[in-house]
C-alpha cells in the first residue's frame, strides 16, 4: 500500500501534449481577436492613407492610447475581482489639476517627485473607494458612482475657473510626451512598462492570482482563506495610483488642466477592458488584453479621421465592438461547455 505515493506507472499524459497545448492555448488566447482586429484596422488604414504610419502618425497613435491604456490596466484589476471603479475620470481630473497646482506652487519640484506625489494622491482617492467598498461591503458600482460626483465636485471647488496651461509647467515635463525613444514617446514607454509590470504581477505572483480567484468565486475565495477584503482594497488603491499616474501624464501631454479634465472617461475605460476580453463578472481576462482594447478604441478614432470617414460613425463602431467582444466570449464559453459535456458523456 505504501507504494501508492511513489507509484509512477499510472496514466501519464502524452509528452507531446505540451507542444500541442501551447498552440491550442495561443488560439484560445482572448487577446488574439483584439490583436487581429487592431492589425487589420491599421493595415487597411495604412493602405488607403499611407500617412497613417508616418513617424508622426505612429507617435500620435501611441500617445492617444497611452492614458486610456494605463486607466484600463487599473480598471482591469478591479473588474477581475468583480468590482468596478466609475470614478477614474474624476480621479484623473483631480490629480491632473493637482499636478498643475504643484508646478505653479513649486516650479522647481523634481519631475520624479511630481510622479510620486501624483500617484500617492491617486492612491489616496482610490483608497477611499476601496475602504467604502470593502468596509461597508456595498457594491462598487454604487460607491464609485457616488465618488464620481464627489471627486468631480471637489475638483470644481478646488479649481474654479482656474486652469493651468502647458506653459506653466517646466519644459522637460511637457517633453516627456514629445520626445521619443526608439520611435516610442517616453510616456508611452512608461505605460508599456506599467502594462508589463502589472501583467507579470497578475500572472506571476500569488497576490495577483488571488485577484483572479476572488473574481472567479468570492465565496470560495473566503472559504479558502484568501484575504478578500484586503486584496480588493489594494486593487482599488492600485487603480487609484494608476489613475494618478494617468493624471500626471495628462498634465504632461495636454495643454490645460482644470475643473473638467477627464470628464466622462470612465465608460471608455470600462469599454476598453471589455473589448480587450476582460469578463465583466470577474475571474478572467488580462491587463494585456485591456491595454490592447484601449489601443484598438483610440486607433479607431484616428483611423476614421485618417480615412476621412464621417467621424459620427466612430461612437457607433465602438458600441458594435463592445457588443461583438461580449458575444465572442459568450459563444466561446458555450462551445467549451458543450464540448466538455459531450466528451464527458462519452466517458460515461
Amino acid at each position: 500500500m505504501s507504494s501508492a505515493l511513489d507509484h509512477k506507472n499510472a496514466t501519464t499524459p502524452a509528452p507531446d501534449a505540451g507542444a500541442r497545448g501551447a498552440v491550442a492555448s495561443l488560439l484560445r488566447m482572448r487577446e488574439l481577436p483584439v490583436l487581429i482586429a487592431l492589425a487589420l484596422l491599421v493595415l487597411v488604414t495604412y493602405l488607403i492613407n499611407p500617412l497613417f504610419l508616418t513617424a508622426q502618425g505612429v507617435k500620435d497613435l501611441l500617445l492617444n492610447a497611452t492614458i486610456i491604456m494605463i486607466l484600463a490596466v487599473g480598471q482591469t484589476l478591479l473588474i477581475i475581482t468583480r468590482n468596478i471603479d466609475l470614478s477614474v475620470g474624476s480621479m484623473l481630473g483631480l490629480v491632473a489639476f493637482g499636478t498643475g497646482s504643484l508646478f505653479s506652487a513649486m516650479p522647481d519640484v523634481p519631475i520624479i517627485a511630481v510622479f510620486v506625489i501624483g500617484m500617492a494622491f491617486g492612491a489616496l482617492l482610490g483608497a477611499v473607494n476601496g475602504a467604502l467598498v470593502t468596509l461597508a461591503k456595498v457594491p462598487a458600482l454604487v460607491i464609485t458612482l457616488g465618488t464620481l460626483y464627489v471627486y468631480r465636485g471637489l475638483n470644481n471647488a478646488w479649481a474654479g475657473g482656474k486652469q493651468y496651461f502647458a506653459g506653466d509647467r517646466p519644459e522637460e515635463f511637457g517633453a516627456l510626451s514629445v520626445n521619443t525613444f526608439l520611435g516610442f514617446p517616453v510616456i508611452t514607454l512608461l505605460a508599456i512598462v506599467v502594462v508589463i509590470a502589472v501583467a507579470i504581477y497578475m500572472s506571476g505572483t500569488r497576490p495577483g492570482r488571488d485577484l483572479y480567484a476572488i473574481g472567479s468565486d468570492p465565496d470560495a475565495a473566503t472559504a479558502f482563506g484568501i484575504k478578500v477584503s484586503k486584496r480588493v482594497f489594494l486593487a482599488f488603491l492600485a487603480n487609484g495610483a494608476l489613475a494618478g499616474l494617468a493624471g500626471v501624464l495628462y498634465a504632461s501631454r495636454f495643454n490645460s488642466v482644470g475643473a473638467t479634465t477627464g470628464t466622462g472617461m470612465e465608460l471608455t475605460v470600462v469599454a476598453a477592458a471589455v473589448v480587450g476580453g476582460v469578463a465583466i463578472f470577474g475571474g478572467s481576462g488580462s491587463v494585456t488584453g485591456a491595454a490592447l482594447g484601449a489601443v484598438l478604441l483610440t486607433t479607431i478614432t484616428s483611423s476614421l479621421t485618417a480615412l476621412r470617414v464621417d467621424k459620427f460613425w466612430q461612437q457607433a463602431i465602438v458600441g458594435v465592438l463592445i457588443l461583438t467582444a461580449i458575444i465572442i466570449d459568450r459563444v466561446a464559453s458555450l462551445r467549451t461547455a458543450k464540448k466538455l459535456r459531450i466528451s464527458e458523456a462519452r466517458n460515461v
Partner: protein
Amino acid sequence: MMLNRKNKGRTGRLGSMVAITAVAALALTACNSGSASSTDTSSPSAGGGDQKITFIPKQLNNPYTDVVLGGGKKGATEAGFASSQVVGPLEASASSQVSFINAETQAGTNVIAIAANDPDAVCTALGEARSAGAKIVAFDSDTNPDCRDIFISQVVAKDVALIQTKLISEQIGGSGEIAILSATANATNQNEWIKYMEEELASNPAYKDIKLVAKVYGDDNDTKSFQEAQGLMQAHPNLKGIISPTTVGIAATARYLSTSAYKGKVALTGLGLPNEMRPFVKDGTVKEFALWDPAQLGYVAAFAGKALKDGKITGAEGDTFTAGELGERKVEKGGLVIVGPPTVFNAENIDKYNF
C-alpha cells in the same frame, strides 16, 4: 460585479435618514454662508434701487468666461445694480442652462445676461423670464433674436472673420489648404464667423489660391480639440494652416503643433487669450492671433442691461446708452451692440496684456 450579496442589513434606517437630512441641511448652510459665485455689491449706487443682474455663461470654470464675467461684475457695480450673480452649468450642453434661467425667473432677477449654448433651447425659458418682467441681454453667443432684448457682440462679426482670414493668408503666403477647428457645431457666434470666412475666401480674389478643406469641432474641450487637430494633419497632408476661432481650440491646437513634427510647418491663427497663448507665440508655433478685450464684453452687457431695465432703451435700432468708462454705445440693426475692434497679438505686444 456587485455580487457581494452579503450585507443586506435593513436597519440603521433612522440613522441614514438623519444623516441624509443632515447632509442636505449642511450643504445649504455651507451655501448660505459662502457661495463662491455670489458677491453682493457693497454700495448700491443712486438710482439703482434693488435691481439685480445675473450672468449665465455657457459654462462655469472656463478661463475666457472668467475674464468676461470679471468685466461684467465690474460693470454691474458701476452701472448701479444692487447685486450681481453668476450661475451656470458645469457642462456646456444645450439644455443645461434652462433650469438656471427658470430659477432666476423665480428669484425675480431683473436682468439676465446670457451666453447661449444653443440659440433655441433656451428660448422658452427666456420667454417666461421676460413675461415675468426680466430684461434679457445676450452676450458673446447670441440666442434666437426673438428671445432677447439686445445682443452684445464682441465686434462686428464680419470684422472678426476678416481679420482671421487675413492673418492666415499672410502666414501661409497666400496659397494652400487651410482648415477650421471650431467649438461646438451649434455655437452661434462661431458659425456666423465661419460663414463670413467662407464668403470672403470665395469672393476675395486675394484668397483665390487658398482652399478651405475641412471644418472640425473640438467642442471647447481640450482633449477633443487636441485630437481633432491631430486628425486634421493626418487627413490633410498638404494642410498649410488652421484657423481656430475659439480660445480652447486654438490653445489645444497650438499645444499639439508645438509638440509635433508640424511645428513651424503648419500655421495657426484664430482667437485666443494672450495668457494662454504666450508660450506658443514665444516658441514660434503661432505668429499672430486676435481677440477683443473679453472684459469689455461683460462690462458693456451690464450697462446695457441697466439701460434696458431703466427703460432708457428698448433694444431698437438707433438707441444709445453710456457704458461707463467705455463711453457711448449705439444699438444697431437687430438689437446688436458692438463692443470694440479686435486686437492682433504677436511676439512684440503680447506681454502688454494680462487676460
